[in-house]
């Protein structure tokens, strides 16, 4: 059990305590972490239009299962892969933006890093909650 990575609210691991702690909430980090994760899990990784497009494609191929089950599974695989690619491309772009800032001599501002970090965490949390 102790080997497991735990990102549960009750975790005291300093790595998972959120940055930017407000001093007055300091005494109750569990509540804060929980709120944060909940809020973040609603932050969309895709735009509404993209979501609609993807869902509608999924709907069509689900209807198609009865006609050609094997093809439907192949198409589902394709769509899932495409969706994951869409996500990783998004993160790669983000990373590139940060890299550019680093290479331009200046550090990326801590604020940019903080926001980027949060986005990574949001994605990470979602992967774990699957």
């Amino acid at each position, binding site marked *: 059990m102790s080997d497991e990575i735990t990102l549960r609210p009750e975790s005291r691991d300093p790595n998972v305590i959120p940055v930017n702690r407000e001093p007055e909430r300091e005494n109750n980090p569990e509540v804060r972490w929980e709120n944060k994760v909940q809020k973040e899990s609603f932050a969309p990784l895709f735009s509404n239009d993209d979501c609609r497009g993807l869902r509608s494609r999924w709907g069509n191929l689900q209807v198609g299962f009865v*006609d050609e089950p094997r093809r439907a599974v192949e198409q589902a695989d394709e769509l899932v892969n495409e969706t994951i690619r869409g996500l990783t491309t998004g993160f790669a772009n983000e990373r590139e933006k940060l890299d550019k800032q680093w290479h331009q001599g200046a550090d990326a501002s801590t604020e940019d890093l903080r926001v980027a970090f949060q986005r990574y965490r949001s994605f990470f949390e979602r992967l774990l909650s699957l």
Partner: protein
Amino acid sequence: MNPNVAIAIAFVVGFLVGVVVMYAAQQAKTARLKKQFGPEYGRVIADTGDRHRTEAVLEERHRRVRKLSLRPLSATEKANFQEGWRSVQARFVDDPAIALTEADVLIGKVMAAEGYPVTEFEQRAEDISVDHPIVVENYRDGHAIELRNQQGRVSTEDMRKAMINYRRLFEELVGLPEGEPAERIRL
């Protein structure tokens, strides 16, 4: 010629003509019913084992259905039913058995909307056979699988085939969605 012989010949000829006419009429009736009922004719004759009874049964069906006031579905009804079918078919992935039952229920609703009496399966199939003799076979096949499924003895593949069978009838009754390429939705 002896008048008696002439009368006898006239009788014989008259009798022969009568036999030929009756035979021709019978043949015409058989041909008409075979054409109208297609495979259903063979099914009923296999059931009754007798041509006369078969034809009486089929003509009775025909008369009964002609007395119903059937009506074509409106464009809105068609679109609604097609939408309904889409969700039933999508449901198959999560629950094939329920999807199958829902498909059967949906077909019942379509038939009721068209003016068919709401009755049990065999009667419904007979009613359908009058105007849709080919797909009624699909309907029977699908229903047989559904019944076996209620006893829990059916593979998912069988249920999928039953869905396709039901859909053949559904499409015959409702038609394909507007602009839907026929080959996409057919097997």
